[in-house]
């Protein structure tokens, strides 16, 4: 099992390298280069050449990629083109905000979704199962901003329960922070619970259809015991994958939600950087999002390996 986990870690590191190469390649699609983007209309051939040398743009692409990667690993993310501040200073606090919001949403949605999915699977075909499936199908189809706007309209404009904008600042108390971020977190919860619940139900049902579960029922065991002791240990690994898939979704779903509630996170920051075409910012933000995604998926795979009873007790 240790060998399997180490293999998965190595694969994760290889994936991270490939992802970084792909993101770097993507940012090089521009016909011109960063130097002409900075100088814009005022560019003369001499100033362009000087700036290119300054930024190291006269080097071949693979050399620039290695420099960038080295900078990224050592914490030097370069300078923003728009306001000439170090990218790292702008990026990390916002990344912290985004992770806090995603964690808040995940802490609420994961237990609810897994319990609902389990309940629906156990009562397959019953009223509860059918009803919750229709509701889930509707929620899966609703875009984040539609839900977000409805929540603002009802919870903050009509009943004035929660603020409509997620204004956060450093040093605010935890209670204030919760109040400010509840609406965006709730939007994320509504979007992910439906999806996660449907996937959990499918994962549990595929285990419930197996012969050994039928045997357990035929032995006369109670439903509760069959589900908790026989089915769940084998369904745990797929459920962990479902949860990881949705937390990974949260990381990008957060981009739209941050825009709705004007939350000062990495998603909104990256969108602004794309609009201003600030290359170093976009590159760094994309790499951070990509890395978070890859690392989460690796953790999920490792957890699935660790949870698999057959791998834990090898013959």
């Amino acid at each position, binding site marked *: 099992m240790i060998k399997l986990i180490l293999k998965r870690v190595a694969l994760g590191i290889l994936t991270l390298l490939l992802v970084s190469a792909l993101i770097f390649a993507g940012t090089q699609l521009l016909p011109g280069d960063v130097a002409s983007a900075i100088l814009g209309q005022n560019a003369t051939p001499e100033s362009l050449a000087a700036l290119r040398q300054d930024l190291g743009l006269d080097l071949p692409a693979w050399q620039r990629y290695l420099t960038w990667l080295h900078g990224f690993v050592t914490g030097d993310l370069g300078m923003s083109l728009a306001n000439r501040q170090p990218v790292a200073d702008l990026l990390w606090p916002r990344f912290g905000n985004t992770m806090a919001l995603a964690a808040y949403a995940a802490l609420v949605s994961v237990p609810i979704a897994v319990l609902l999915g389990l309940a629906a699977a156990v009562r397959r075909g019953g009223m509860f199962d059918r009803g919750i499936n229709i509701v889930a199908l509707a929620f899966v189809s609703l875009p*984040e901003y539609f839900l977000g*706007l409805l929540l603002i309209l009802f919870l903050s*404009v009509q009943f004035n329960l929660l603020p409509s904008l997620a204004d956060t600042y450093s040093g605010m108390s935890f209670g204030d922070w919760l109040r400010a971020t509840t609406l965006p977190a709730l939007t994320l919860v509504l979007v992910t619970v439906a999806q996660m619940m449907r996937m959990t139900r499918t994962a549990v049902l595929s285990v419930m259809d197996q012969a050994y579960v039928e045997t357990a029922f035929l032995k006369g065991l109670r439903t509760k015991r069959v589900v908790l002791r026989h089915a769940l240990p084998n369904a745990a690994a797929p459920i962990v994958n479902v949860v990881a898939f949705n937390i990974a979704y949260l990381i990008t779903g957060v981009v739209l939600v941050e825009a709705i509630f004007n939350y000062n996170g990495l998603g909104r920051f990256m*969108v602004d950087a794309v609009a201003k075409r600030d290359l170093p910012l976009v590159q760094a933000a994309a790499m951070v999002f990509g890395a978070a*995604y890859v690392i989460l998926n690796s953790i999920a795979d490792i957890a699935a390996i660790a949870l698999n009873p057959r791998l834990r007790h090898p013959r």
Partner: protein
Amino acid sequence: MRAKLKAIPISAWLGLTIVTLNLLVFVFGPMLAPYGMNEIVGAPFDPPSAQFWFGLDQNGRDMFSRLLAGAQMSIGVSLAASLISFSIGIPLGFVAALFGGWVDTVLSRIVDTVMCIPVLISALVVLQALGSSVPVLIFTIALLDSTRVFRLARVVAQGISVLEYAETARLRGESLGWLITREILPNALPPLIAEFGMRFCFTFLFVAGLSFLGLGIQPPFADWGGMVKDNQQAILYGLYAPLFPAAAIALLTIGVNLVVDWLLNSGAAVQGADR
């Protein structure tokens, strides 16, 4: 035929109706619109009335007319992206499945790597480099989405190519083109059609989302995601303006999902097709 029509559940009828209505609006929308999409007809955020069914937007333009006209961009861009995505993903997926070996390995590894990055993040990187325009949007989304189509097409083709009739055709010495067009494609069509609905839903929400972020379809064109963004502030005053385009987006998505659900349940699903 009659019995077949009767077998269609209500939810699927509802979905089919929604999709048909949207397609009609997509084709005839601009002709049906009572006012021009950029024509200012009153004060900003005038509430709905008999003359202006959905009220006026932040610039005093008729919301109903803009919704009708905006369908062209919102639906058109995602439809074009899905079509291109399928015409890239399906042939490559089939070729990877039939050839196997290094062709399959190379294509699959490239697709795996692209899929390691969230689609939205990849799209933002490309839009940063190339700027946002309709062709860039269509091709970026089509290329990114074709990775999903490739995976499904490959799995489906692999399943079919080991069946007797495909095996027989290969032993008969039929060409690759024959195998793909005469043996694989007809039998792979049902799951691929259901997948087309799912992919369209995804690209449609994706384009609308990018427009909502201000990075999708740009003015002077009207589109539903952009209309939500432009009118977003009105919600703070208890006005429903941004809810109309948002509901239009949600409605079409639900409609397509209902149709796809019916297609999948009526036996078009292929076992083991992952997404």
